[in-house]
């Protein structure tokens, strides 16, 4: 199962990269969203999957899923959310101000 999940995360990562390499700003932002999904799936998998109950203590449970990666993911999800929100607003402002959402037109030059 872990192998499948790692491959899945890798595929998501690849798609993320593909989108990041596009010109359209929206595509790139979508790429970053995919990227964080891939990253979180990687983290979860690294803590092993399906090895016990959800990490909430209860009578009778012998094994629990590794709680540490879950805690790390939670932190990371919240941070990613913050970054993505800022990125979205920034993208909106950048496109409005510069009049294009094509990053190749936003190269600029060394003189400004």
């Amino acid at each position: 199962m872990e192998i499948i999940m790692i491959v899945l995360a890798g595929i998501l990562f690849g798609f993320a990269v593909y989108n990041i390499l596009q010109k359209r700003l929206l595509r790139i932002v979508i790429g970053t969203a995919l990227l964080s999904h891939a990253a979180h799936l990687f983290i979860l998998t690294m803590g092993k999957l399906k090895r016990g109950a959800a990490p909430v203590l209860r009578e009778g449970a012998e094994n629990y899923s590794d709680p540490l990666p879950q805690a790390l993911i939670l932190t990371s999800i919240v941070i990613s959310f913050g970054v993505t929100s800022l990125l979205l607003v920034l993208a909106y402002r950048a496109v409005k101000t510069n009049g294009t959402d094509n990053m190749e037109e936003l190269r600029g030059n060394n003189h400004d």
Partner: protein
Amino acid sequence: MTNLAILPILIPFLSGVLVAFTHNRLGLTRTLAMLLAIVHLITMGFLSFHVLTEGSIVLEAGDWIAPYGIVLVLDPLSALLVLTTSIILVAAVWYAPSSVSEEQESFYFYAFVFLLITGVSGAFITGDLFNLFVFFEVLLMASYALITHGGKKVQLRESIKYVLINLFSSMLFVTTVSYVYAVLGTVNMAQLAERAAASDSPGIITTVAILLFFVFATKGAAFPLYYWLPRSYIVPNPVISALFGALLTKVGVYSLIRTFTLIFHQQPEIIDNLFIWVGNLTMLFGVLGALASRNIKLIVAYNIIPAIGFMLVGIGMFNIDGLSGSIYYLLQDMIIKAALFLLAGTIASLAGTADINKMGGMIRSHPMLGWMFFIGGLVLAGVPPFSGFIGKLLLVRGAFEKGETVTVIIMLITSLLILLSIVRAFIRVFWGEGNTGAEPAGKHGSQIFSAGFLMLFTVFLGIGAEAILPSVQQIADYLLEPQTYIELVLKGDH
């Protein structure tokens, strides 16, 4: 006493919150910001002195023993870095009112600055790999807010690139942390070091380390990962450029020094050569950009990169001279880069343009500005008796000791080209016909003073090197012996 280790992050954090609440009373905000920055500087001075004389301070946050909780480790290296950071903070807050528009200032400018410092200081003192990621995010988020602050067209254009590049490396960072966790079963740096040293399969450790190397090298702007840096660093206000130029890339370098001396030095033949060659190329390509530029701010921005190359090769030498050279270079470069960004900002503001070919004869009206810029060039090129020389001498010695003659030659040529880039700018801006910026300094007076404040430190770090250098050499010695750090944090009781 151990609680003192929280101060480097607590003071700027609370300061940030405090100035955020006063944002609509500008006079109060400014005074408060300056006051708090000075308090921070004094406290960090005291703390560093304490650490250098009495020894490192380890704080287990929330009293959870290492490696299970998060530890903050204020060792001599971290202490000197947070101290240097606090010096730059004072200069930045001093410079800001005359450069940042009042409207911008009241839009949480100082809050962002303090939070940026929080993130930077946190990254310097944390002893936990995932927590390092969190502090990276704090400083990055503050930098995102600052780089877009003001919302000019070019700013928005360049900052979106900046955010996207950093976002990729952040995600790679967090993924790599999970890889490290899978292999070594922990995220506490001391325990990582202990376990990495005890393991007998170095291959996988080196592999994940390489990923981490690239994460930090992207933040630290090493070749060929630096392309994003120069243009994005010059678009915001000079104060922000100075903070970025002085602090952000250096956090990347610090992280490399910390993790690769402590944890990931299992296969020196790979790791050392990686550092040396990436460093060599970083020096050459970075200075290439500096030579190619006609924009005074860009020239300074590009000069960040060869300096990073110097520090990287020093880490790759992995001997006392190389490492102490890197650390000394790191400390002094933070200060001189901040000073140069501030000076370049003032020059561009006085001239009304950043193009050096459109200026001339500025020395007539602004001799102080000119001579400080000139000395800045000498510092960068490593001309004695200034601080750059001390670092360069150690690096050259370290490289020769390791037999890396090519690196020495590249270092020396790079230094010469750095000198050319700065002196050429100096000649075009300050000498020759014309009389750029003839009006009296006015509000630029305080800008020149705040840059001068930083210049004093570079001069001190050169002439008075003996005050710091023995500590730096001890740090290098201590970095070469990770056991000290491991015992400091884990105390052998886990």
